[in-house]
């Protein structure tokens, strides 16, 4: 199970990576493992607003559905559209090719409230 050090994490198992002025978001290795083979993902459109803690989309496996929660508030500026034809990317490479959306944050300080890799790893170990 991977927990890249340079990322921040939510209790809902999303990760956030700072990339210039944007925050890139996806789901963690633990999340994709729990979900199973991803068969479908529903993402917002470019330009849509997102709010911290609120749902921005849905990811589905054959037997489970999970909402995706925004780690921070802001506006969606990029969407990883190839995911709809290749949802398995989320399983194969959740932290790189499996990225979901990029957000232009309205309040970058919100990032600080998220967990770091060490804290998240401990959090995950508690879940199991």
């Amino acid at each position, binding site marked *: 199970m991977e927990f890249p050090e340079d990322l921040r994490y939510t209790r809902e198992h999303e990760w956030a990576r700072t990339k210039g002025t944007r925050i890139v978001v996806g789901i963690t290795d633990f999340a994709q493992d729990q979900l199973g083979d991803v*068969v479908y993902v529903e993402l917002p459109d470019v330009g849509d607003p997102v709010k911290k803690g609120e749902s921005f989309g849905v990811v589905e*496996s054959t*037997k489970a559905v999970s909402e995706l929660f925004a780690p921070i508030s802001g506006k969606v500026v990029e969407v990883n559209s190839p995911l709809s034809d290749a949802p398995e990317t989320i399983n194969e490479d959740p932290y790189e090719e499996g990225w979901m959306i990029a957000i232009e944050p309205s309040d970058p300080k919100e990032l600080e409230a998220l967990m770091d890799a060490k804290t998240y790893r401990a959090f995950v170990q508690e879940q199991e």
Partner: protein
Amino acid sequence: MSNPTGWKPSMEKDAKVPAAAAMAAADGTGLGGATRGLVHEEALLFERGSTGRCGVSLPPLPAGHDVQDLPAALVRGGVDGLPEISELEVVRHFTRLSIWNHGIDTGFYPLGSCTMKYNPKSSEALARLAGFANVHPLAPPELCQGALELMWRLERALSEIAGFDTTALSPAAGAHGELCGVMVIRAYHESKGNARRKVLLPDTAHGTNPASAALNGYDVVQLASGPDGRLHPEAVRAAMDEDVAAIMLTNPNTLGIFESHIQEIAEIVHAKGGLVYGDGANMNALLGVARPGDMGFDVIQYNLHKTFATPHGGGGPGSGPVAVKAHLAPFLPLPVVVKEGEAYRLVTDAKERPKSVGRLREFWGNFGMFVRAWALIREYGPDGLADTGKLAVLNANYVRALLRGVYNLPYETDSLHEVVFDDKLQKANGIATMDVAKRLIDHGFHPPTIYFPLVVSGAIMIEPTETESKETIERFVAAMKAIAEEAKADPDALHAAPSRPIRARLDETRAARKPVLRWRPGIKVE
């Protein structure tokens, strides 16, 4: 991201499959009893490629028949792609398909909450009498008094059996009955000036419950059941307010446990003007023993295909009559059947029932199922119905006693007609509920209900019903025990299961990622 069922994808990813296991029928596991002759592969009808054949015999068209009166652009020559095969080929096709199926007529189905009891052949024969099968729903009442009388008698019996004042027969299935029941509840509240906004339900509720509530515009509030598997009054009291339209309960619940706090819970809900909805899926435990209407329920839906043995048919049709107390009767959907003097009539005119929620389906209900259910009620009588409840509960408790310690029992609380185990004891060997279920198939049994209810991780829910014999139950238990042993000795065999049916484990991921939902010429699954 939560995973309440305990299901994990790794359960479906197999260990290396020994080639032999794929081919051989391991006779040592043949305890289930179903035998097969040769089992053929069978292509889709549409792949036959034959032309010009037809399997029906019809009168000729009149000489010179034309369709000139129809606009040419709106007419088609023939439907391309339809098969063109003889009656014999059709008969062989479906006969061969049928032998790939497990059915109650083939073997045991210990499916919890499904009540897979024997479907009497008498019910089937009676439903097919021309006098029942060939009646048009719009036949004038004087030409269909037999059908109307049957519906009236069934309505009286269903009302009595569950302890309610009147029953609407029209809903097409259990979930449809739930939709109806919540609609009636909503209409009742609307008539009092406030539809209210919430519906309470326990974490053991079947998925159709919150779906039915949501479809009626209600927010769903889930309440946690206690460590004994029961919903406790305090949980209800804490959530109950004047914005709650109803609580939806199954009793016994989906753990097979009687909600013994039902009266107090009903009082709490009623005190704030709410109503109590009953999901009647588990009526089999209560027949002749106790009645939901006496417990404080205001409305309940039946599942005729469960309790009254109308055939499951590979997924339906069902029938979900809704029984209510008098204060909800005005809101029932139309039609309802009434007796006036010696004559029977359907009330279809909204003017006669101005508060009715309206129509929920075409015509009057799944009459074909009414005949079967009524036939069963006539054959059982009050004693047979009471025996049903008792035997169903006895059989389930027998299973519980015999499998105790072999599989983990998450709740010590008494079970009624069904019992829930889980896979805790098998986990140590890397075996999960899914593996146990698939291996049961090799023993000739359909698996029990698995991964439901959600409150139990890796749930295995077993409901034998009253129509299974002691011997069958013992064979089933023997198979379950053998699997538990195999879990320790040879877990790989379980991961590779099932090996005996015509197909091994099927790739559901592929089916969902690249859906192929119909035949097209050159269809390929990849």
